[in-house]
């Protein structure tokens, strides 16, 4: 799939005008019961297509901020541990988010890791964070690349604590590494991801390095005894 086509998919899903895009519904009806749910609602189980449900970006930014702040508090500013926890949270998110991603985008398996990288940057990040990081710095074996973030909604409003350590130890957006790890594992790719620079630390760019470790084989059912 060409890079242009990939970015078009991202745009189209974000704006949801592409008739090819699978239907993304509102929550068809809500919690509790069939008993007092009006019949008409049942008929709207799969109603008209709608755009990707949106929410105020600041709510997301601030919510993420409180999560990081809470972790810093709980782990007594042990930033290594905070990084680890953020990665773990991201991993959990990634495993869920990939299903949503596939459901929304309707894209199939990527042919190679380069295509995967494009898909992550131009469709994945576009749908979920409305940014499109640049894919660059490919290693010669095509198994390693960098994502450069021009914008990072998670870090809007953020300044790291001025304690002489946070700028050297904390990767504020580390949750994103976990998200990539979790979501790619679900589509049979074991990867490793880490930030190498962050404007919050005073670096010129925000860059994440992603490396493919291996493709995961299908799991077999346990042997009958």
């Amino acid at each position, binding site marked *: 799939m060409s890079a242009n086509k990939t970015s078009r998919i991202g745009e189209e899903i974000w704006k949801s005008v592409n008739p090819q895009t699978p239907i993304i519904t509102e929550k068809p009806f809500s919690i509790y019961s069939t008993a007092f749910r009006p019949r008409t609602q049942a008929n709207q189980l799969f109603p008209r297509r709608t755009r990707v449900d949106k929410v*105020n970006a600041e709510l997301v930014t601030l919510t993420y901020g409180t999560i990081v*702040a809470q972790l810093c508090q709980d782990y007594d500013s042990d930033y290594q541990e905070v990084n680890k926890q953020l990665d773990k949270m991201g991993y959990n998110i990634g495993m869920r*988010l990939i299903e949503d991603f596939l459901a929304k985008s309707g894209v199939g398996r990527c042919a190679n890791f380069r295509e995967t990288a494009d898909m992550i940057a131009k469709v994945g990040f576009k749908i979920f964070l409305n940014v499109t990081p640049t894919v660059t710095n490919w290693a010669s074996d095509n198994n390693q690349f960098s994502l450069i973030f021009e914008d990072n909604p998670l870090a809007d409003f953020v*300044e790291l604590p001025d304690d002489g350590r946070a700028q050297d130890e904390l990767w504020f957006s580390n949750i994103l590494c976990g998200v990539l790890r979790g979501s790619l594992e679900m589509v049979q790719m074991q990867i490793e991801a880490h930030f190498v620079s962050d404007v919050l630390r005073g670096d010129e760019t925000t860059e994440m390095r992603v490396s493919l470790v291996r493709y995961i084989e299908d799991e077999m059912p346990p042997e009958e005894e």
Partner: protein
Amino acid sequence: MAAPPRHSTMLSISNGGTQQSGPNDKQTQQQAQTLPQSPGLRVPSNRKTIYDRHLNRSRNAELSRASFAYLFGEMVTYAQRRVTGIQDLEKRLNEQGYPLGLRLLDLLFYRSTSTSSSALSSSSTSSSPPNRPLRIITLLHLIHGPLWRLLFGRSADALEHSVSPDTPNEYMITDNDPLVNTYISVPREMSMLNCAAFVAGIIEGVCDGCGFETKVSAHNQPTEMWPSRTVFLVRFGDSVMEREKVLERAGVK
């Protein structure tokens, strides 16, 4: 309840109007590569810092609701690992919302002043916003309207006052379909749980930030039409009620 001190350094929107960037700031910054407010922090030379970006740049920005759902979900999961019961969990969610309320309050004031005064560049970036609510009703309307619109893109659904003589300090804010509960299917054995306790914490933070000592809790009050309808019970402290009486006699609006 006091805000954990660490928050104030993590997220700096609480600095509100005083730190919006202007041309002057940028020049100063170019000369001295470090910012006066935080001499210890390194900043990139391309000036991608909060001080160089307008506080309103994300005002109308939107993100996927799913992204919020995942973050909020992880917050709930993380909180769940560290608590012993439903009440404890709600307390923790409340505590996580609280600092957010404090910050949103400043953001609300900043925005309401900058839109009401036509000149955005008003030199009076005063530290005391002019329109801090003094009376309970003004405060509640701030929450019911502007705060809800900022967070959820619409006003809350109802605002009510207890007329019971025993509880004149109780008010209710109703949301028929809270955004935070969109994807949550609460298991039977936890039917009391309402994860909107997070929002209750936000309300508490806003009230406290205005100087109204309050306890806010979230309760499931489903109706046939709105199965996830949630009522936020706002209970003001005695000191607030006493002050309210004084202000009423003095005719302060």
